[in-house]
């Protein structure tokens, strides 16, 4: 196992870090408060090639590896948690499944536009009554001539309110349970598609998280993705990849909180000395730094499995997501604690990190689901 980054990966880290520091961090508090989607930042990220990093160059992608994508998501999230998940969703939940399961025509039609940011992507799996259990899906798709007709609703969809293209899952064979689900590429212009209510979230508030509504929504037959009744495979395969980036996002948020807390502990004086001189604070700093480093290695290691062409890496991706999410929640909590009363105010960014981090344990499979995925892999 190689622990050092190659030149491309180092270059991407530097580029993404500079961008996050200059472009994202200064706006993060404002878009968190207003909930306004960062359209400008997304445009700039398209120019830097950050929107379709792992897509082959022939479809307008940057052709980078999954370790590079994880590094980019980590650095972007370090500047702004909302922008981090917007990027992760567009890259690994929306464009990657098209690249992996799409027909050549689908790839030609969507990927170049997703590369330039002309089309922003989203992923519609979760439903009001179907969170961790996709087999209980209620959205249905029925073939009618040259169209599928979709009816139902999706909830908690990141980028939902602003995306142009959605990977949507619907039941095509109600008797077959999880084997009766299919994936579709749905455009916001398809008749019968609409955006429902905007969620008021605890954190990651600038992500246009919305409900999607399908009322006799007509989707061209050729927009079926990955074959009829293959949706569960598409969903699980996509989540294996995207969980690596949620792990990366968690590492980025934790790192941001740690950097701030470390600096503050050296500035803040109580009882006549800097608080970093107290062992109780030192213990916190040591544990925070150690967990972040371990989480980062789990993330890169999972991404490296994917890059090495391994077919199944559910366990590695669940492990990195589980551990990094726990780390982010714990580290951001301790960062608020080190800041004390100041950490509880919006004068400093640590309270935002604390709110943003919590979602890491919840979306793209809760921590409980990750444990089940890991245990199933272990039990074979």
């Amino acid at each position: 196992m190689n622990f050092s980054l190659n030149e491309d990966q180092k270059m991407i880290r530097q580029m993404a870090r500079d961008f996050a520091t200059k472009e994202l961090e200064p706006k993060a508090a404002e878009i968190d408060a207003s909930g306004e989607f960062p359209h400008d930042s997304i445009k700039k990220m398209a120019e830097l090639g950050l929107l379709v990093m792992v897509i082959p160059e022939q479809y307008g992608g940057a052709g980078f590896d999954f370790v590079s994508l994880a590094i980019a998501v980590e650095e972007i999230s370090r500047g702004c948690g909302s922008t981090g998940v917007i990027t992760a969703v567009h890259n690994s939940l929306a464009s990657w499944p098209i690249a992996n399961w799409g027909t050549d025509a689908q790839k030609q039609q969507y990927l170049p536009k997703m590369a330039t940011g002309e089309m922003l992507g989203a992923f519609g799996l979760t439903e009001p009554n179907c969170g961790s259990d996709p087999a209980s899906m209620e959205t249905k798709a029925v073939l009618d001539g040259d169209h599928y007709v979709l009816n139902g609703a999706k909830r908690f969809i990141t980028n939902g309110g602003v995306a142009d293209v959605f990977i949507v899952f619907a039941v095509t064979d109600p008797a077959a349970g999880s084997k009766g689900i299919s994936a579709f590429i749905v455009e916001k212009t398809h008749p019968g598609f609409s955006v429902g209510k905007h969620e008021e979230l605890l954190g990651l508030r600038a992500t246009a998280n919305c409900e999607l509504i399908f009322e006799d929504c007509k989707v061209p037959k050729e927009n079926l993705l990955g074959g009829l009744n293959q949706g569960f495979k598409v969903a699980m395969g996509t989540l294996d990849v995207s969980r690596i980036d949620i792990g990366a996002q968690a590492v980025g948020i934790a790192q941001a909180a740690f950097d701030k807390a470390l600096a503050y502990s050296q500035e803040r004086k109580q009882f006549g000395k800097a608080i970093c001189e107290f062992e109780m604070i030192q213990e916190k700093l040591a544990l925070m730094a150690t967990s972040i480093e371990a989480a980062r290695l789990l993330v890169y290691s999972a991404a490296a499995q994917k890059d090495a062409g391994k077919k199944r890496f559910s366990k590695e991706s669940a492990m990195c997501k589980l551990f990094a999410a726990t780390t982010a929640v714990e580290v951001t909590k301790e960062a608020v604690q080190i800041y004390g009363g100041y950490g509880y105010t919006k004068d400093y960014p640590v309270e935002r990190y604390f709110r943003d981090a919590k979602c890491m344990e919840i979306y793209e499979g809760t921590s409980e689901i990750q444990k089940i995925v890991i245990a199933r892999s272990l039990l074979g």
Partner: protein
Amino acid sequence: MILSKQHADFRAELRKFSREVVRCGARVCDEQGEFVDGNVKAMAERGYLGIPWPKELGGMGRDYLSYAIAVEEISRVCASTGITIAAHTSLGTYPIYKFGTPAQKEKYIPRLARGEYLGSFGLTEPNAGSDAASVETTAKKTEDGYLINGSKRFITSASYAGTVIVAASLDRSLGRKGVTCFIVETGTPGFSVASEENKLGLRGSNTVELAFEDMLVPADSVLGKEYEGYRIFMETLDGGRISIGAFCLGMAQGALDALARWAAGCGRLSQMASARLSDVATEVEAARLLVYNAAQYKDADVRADKECAFAKLYASEVAVRAAGTAMDVIGRPALTPEFDVARIYRDAKLGEIGEGTSEVMRMIIAKEVLSDIAAEQQEER
């Protein structure tokens, strides 16, 4: 713990009040960052702003355990209201009741107990947080009284308060021994609210920065005696930890309520979810016993710094953990207002910080444990 009939009845009364009245404004006040004024008025009408004070001073004449139960039940549905009643009673009123002259008590306790005045406590400063004794606010003795200059930060309810107990130094070269406490009426010239904090949680409570510019207070506004301020605020904080513990306990119970409500509605409960539910329920009960235990020490008039610190440390960590677990297990719906756990998650973090951080609690507990063992060793010899 089996409560006496009197305490059980009081709990039932407070639970009804909390569900029917306090809960209504909780979400809106949090979302809008509006002070829980309506709830304060409703508490005042029912006498809840003076639960542990004698009837002759306008209080309800109940004990500390009753008061802790009230703070718990109120915080269970609205932590912003919970912190407001806790700060008013334990920090804004208690020091006057305990250390005030008969004249000060007669003047202020009935007004505070009836809610004509909301009480507040001004100790923390920009550079005096955990190191509370290093107050930089100064008081200078003059012919007309005391001239106070300085500022305070993170002061609960001060915008709405009638009185603020202010800690100031008569002689900064004496360190903690120079600190004196004053009862300051908020209408005093030179007293001003400089700004309001924009906070992570408890957004329906009022937390402000205060500025004192040549604020002249009368000579009889000294609380206790000159140079006794450190002892007064330390003892006040020790007792205050019972109500902060009760406040955290209420939030933890609120998180448990949401988790249980979700579990009851989800049909077959997974083993993992059922294990988390059990863990949270067990921790909440342990926190409750620690809080009630500390309250009973207070009712027996036994100083119990260690027991108060146990209650505050443990209940605050349980509240944060319970809210976090409830969110994980419930999943994404927990992030939305439907289950209200996201609000508790934000509110609860203050418990580990306010009125002595968890680090300070651990320092107190270690000190007390070491002094216990020293006393034991002394006895053996």
